[in-house]
């Protein structure tokens, strides 16, 4: 496997740099948007996909010359960016910071699904019109497309850097990012700045989609998600919002991946990327190119988000709702409905877990599905390979998820803000990839089959009612415990960490201890949830809990209201139930889901029940 001569290495290097340049186009756009709106734009990957499709139309249907294709793609995606800003984000400018993030997730669902409907989910070929010559150097070779990619990448990055550093509009972009109100008081038209930035970033993203399509000669409607993720990782490696850093981070990421493939094979490619990210974050918590140790400045602005008044359900209402939910199977007997709702309660466990760390402690985790996976695998393997009774395996799996989850996230405890999100996202990916590659333990890509169902006194609980009742009872128990926790001194301490960690430290709050505690509790809840899923599904593999599940969980939590226990349950019920409502229109299901999500955020940005 290991190449022994120099030639292949040069090829790997060139390949790594080319991929790196593509990531750079994405990362720079993301950095720019992050710079101005403190937003990780999850729709960026979708814009990239749209760019590829516009390019495909231009090349195959209209047969336009290459330069015209480029201009069309840039213009089309730039326009799309401006539209995204206008409809998705501007209405949310006074909403809590997390709402726009959710809106970008919704937008990305809408874009991806529309592309599937328009162009079918199948991949298509995107031929390059470039000459096919390759220059041989020292055993490797460089083609025209490689050069074009490098040129576009470096050129646009340089232009952008100059724009931010030296032009008035560039300064306005940075000023707006730092303090909107103050920027307005300097006469900056903040809306215009935002629109411009989204347009530029999206044009870059679209062009990189086109280039990638040509490079691999294939495009498909789902190509955006992974690419967007990589752009985000690259940006993080360089330091959030730092344009030159994003470029360096991208090239580095490209090289790491390319060498990783060379050494261990393709299935390790992403593992390498994410492990590198975690390492860099641990060693240099603010990215590779951030300056040395520095106390975060006291908040200069005193700008506080105008939060909503949380909707507090009276005690009797909570009890009534719980009783009604418990009594439901006595009235409704359709197994399909009960199963769907049972599934919703399982997801509610995940949401409960996430709302604790993301809402209460303010550590927005994007890899929460990893905890589910750990719980699910722990419980099934305990039951299958170690012969532990299922009833015991489930809580044990909770403990395993608590311990392992906390240990894995531990390096991220010293990070702040968005770095935490991305580090947890990486942790989630790493969990999936380890499951995939550690075949001796996890059975690798085949997955675990024949997982025994939950049973009490030898009687398996598999009928429709039990599939509904078991998750619901577990959920109610955990929800009660969590509410009790939040009402204790711990709840107060955890919220204090969210509000201002420096002040919290100054009053004796040991951040590691409390973040650890929160992640342990969250890990336990999610682990039990995952374990129950495994025993109900009877088959799991590395794709049972993919990254989009983490996004879904976050959507539930934000929709319900961050930190709000009842909200998490409601969010799960709505988001698992909603797509089922549209099952008749199966093709349009996800699209409708995206649109409804967008509307909900638009009119209730603080979540249905409000943030606590």
């Amino acid at each position: 496997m290991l190449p022994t001569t120099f030639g292949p290495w040069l090829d790997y290097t060139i390949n790594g740099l080319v991929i790196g340049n593509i990531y750079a186009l994405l990362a720079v756009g993301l950095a720019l948007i992050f710079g101005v709106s403190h937003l990780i734009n999850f729709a960026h990957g979708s814009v990239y996909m749209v760019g590829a499709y516009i390019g495909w139309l231009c090349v195959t249907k209209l047969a336009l010359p290459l330069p015209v294709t480029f201009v069309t793609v840039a213009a089309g995606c730039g326009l799309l960016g401006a539209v995204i800003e206008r409809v998705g984000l501007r209405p949310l400018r006074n909403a809590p910071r997390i709402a726009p993030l959710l809106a970008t997730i919704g937008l990305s669902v809408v874009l991806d699904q529309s592309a599937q409907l328009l162009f079918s989910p199948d991949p298509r070929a995107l031929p390059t019109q470039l000459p096919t010559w390759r220059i041989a150097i020292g055993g490797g070779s460089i083609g025209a497309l490689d050069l074009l990619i490098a040129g576009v990448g470096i050129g646009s990055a340089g232009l952008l850097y100059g724009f931010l550093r030296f032009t008035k509009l560039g300064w306005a972009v940075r000023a707006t990012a730092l303090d909107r109100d103050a920027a307005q008081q300097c006469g900056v038209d903040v809306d215009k700045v935002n629109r411009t930035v989204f347009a530029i970033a999206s044009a870059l993203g679209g062009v990189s989609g086109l280039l990638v399509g040509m490079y691999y000669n294939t495009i498909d409607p789902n190509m955006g998600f992974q690419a967007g993720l990589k752009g985000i990782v690259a940006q993080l490696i360089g330091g959030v919002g730092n344009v030159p850093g994003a470029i360096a981070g991208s090239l580095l990421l490209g090289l790491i991946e390319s060498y990783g493939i060379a050494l261990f094979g393709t299935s390790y490619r992403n593992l390498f990327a994410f492990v590198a990210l975690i390492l860099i974050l641990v060693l240099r918590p603010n990215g590779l190119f951030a300056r040395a140790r520095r106390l975060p400045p006291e908040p200069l602005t005193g700008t506080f988000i105008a939060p909503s008044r949380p909707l507090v359900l009276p005690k009797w209402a909570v009890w009534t709702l719980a009783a009604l939910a418990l009594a439901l199977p006595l009235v409704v007997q359709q197994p399909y409905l009960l199963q769907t709702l049972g599934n919703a309660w399982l997801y509610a466990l995940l949401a409960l877990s996430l709302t604790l760390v993301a809402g209460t402690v303010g550590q927005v985790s994007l890899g929460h599905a990893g905890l589910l996976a750990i719980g699910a695998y722990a419980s099934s393997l305990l039951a299958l390979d170690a012969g532990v009774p299922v009833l015991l395996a489930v809580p044990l799996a909770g403990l395993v998820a608590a311990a392992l989850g906390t240990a894995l996230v531990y390096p991220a405890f010293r990070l702040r803000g968005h770095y935490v999100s991305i580090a947890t996202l990486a942790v989630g990916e790493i969990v999936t990839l380890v499951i995939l590659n550690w075949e001796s333990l996890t059975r690798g890509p085949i997955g675990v089959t024949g997982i025994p169902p939950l049973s009490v006194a030898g009687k398996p609980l598999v009928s429709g009612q039990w599939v509904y009742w078991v998750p619901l009872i577990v959920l109610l128990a955990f929800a009660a415990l969590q509410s009790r926790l939040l009402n204790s001194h711990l709840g107060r301490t955890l919220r204090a960490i969210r509000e201002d960690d420096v002040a919290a430290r100054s009053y004796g709050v040991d951040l590691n201890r409390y973040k650890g505690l929160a992640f342990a509790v969250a890990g336990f809840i999610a682990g039990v949830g995952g374990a129950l899923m495994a025993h109900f599904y009877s088959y799991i593999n590395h794709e049972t809990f993919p990254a989009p599940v983490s996004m879904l969980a976050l959507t539930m939590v934000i929709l319900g209201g961050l930190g709000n226990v009842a909200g998490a349950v409601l969010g799960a019920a709505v988001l698992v139930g909603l797509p089922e409502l549209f099952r008749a229109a199966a093709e349009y299901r996800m699209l409708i889901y995206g649109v409804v999500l967008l509307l909900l955020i638009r009119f209730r940005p603080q979540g249905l029940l409000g943030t606590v």
Partner: protein
Amino acid sequence: MADQLKNSLPKKPLLEIAGLTRRFGGLTAVNGLSLTVETGELVSIIGPNGAGKTTLFNLISGLDAPDAGAVTFEGGDVTGLSAERLAALGLARSFQHGRVFGNLSVLDNVLVGAHTRLRAVKPQIPLVGPLVELALALIRPPSVRAEEERLRAEATEIVRMFGERLTPRLDKPAHSLSYANRRRVEIARALALHPRLLLLDEPTAGMNPTETAEMLEIIRGLKAGGLTILLIEHKLDLVMQLSDRVVVMDHGARIAEGPPAAVAGDPAVIEAYLGHKAVGAANQDGPNQDGGRDAEGDAARILVAH
């Protein structure tokens, strides 16, 4: 008189700072500073903007680590100790621009101040400590409940020190308070820690003279109660009335130290900090004013020439 008293009772200073230095790139924000604070004393630190006062507080309170020098608290070396450990040792501070917990109520803000005093928090054994704390929070035995009740009552009492300014807002989120009221919340929070040493960074910023006088009485009361206080303040009246000793900093170093009256008359202090008008001298020469006046006039004229 005070000096005699001190000499007759040989006791260790509560806080001792020796040769403390902190550099930011080429700038030395704190430069070989030495300072002691005796128990029960109120020492003020004054000095021009950028003298390094806040940086000094950050170093003492463990939010920042010095490049050189040592800090001794109650006889033990605490240099480089983390902020949370120092808080547990009884050191509380307020922040210059305010760091309240915006979405927590005023009462909860103050209660977080009492964090280190909670019994559930005390066990520091790794792994076991947090789990015990979790169990106590969930089970909430009578002792824990009683403690919480007691702290709530105490926090309300502390807030009441600030009169009608905060009491009606006890349940309001801290972000909805006006600037000066947020500062008051910070002080209340610091008091809830039952500090052995209290660091106050410009506690009266944003208050008018009447409100400042109110704060002066509060600080005087704290001092009378035996609290040791290190105070940064630009309002000279207050400093003169409260301090046992005044330390003047400039460019990170101490340029004068002594009883308030002596310091206020020190020519170096007048030059660097007070300006001539502030001490009543109409005389306006000296390097700070010299030539500055004309430049100022010119600049302003340029600015407004339409």
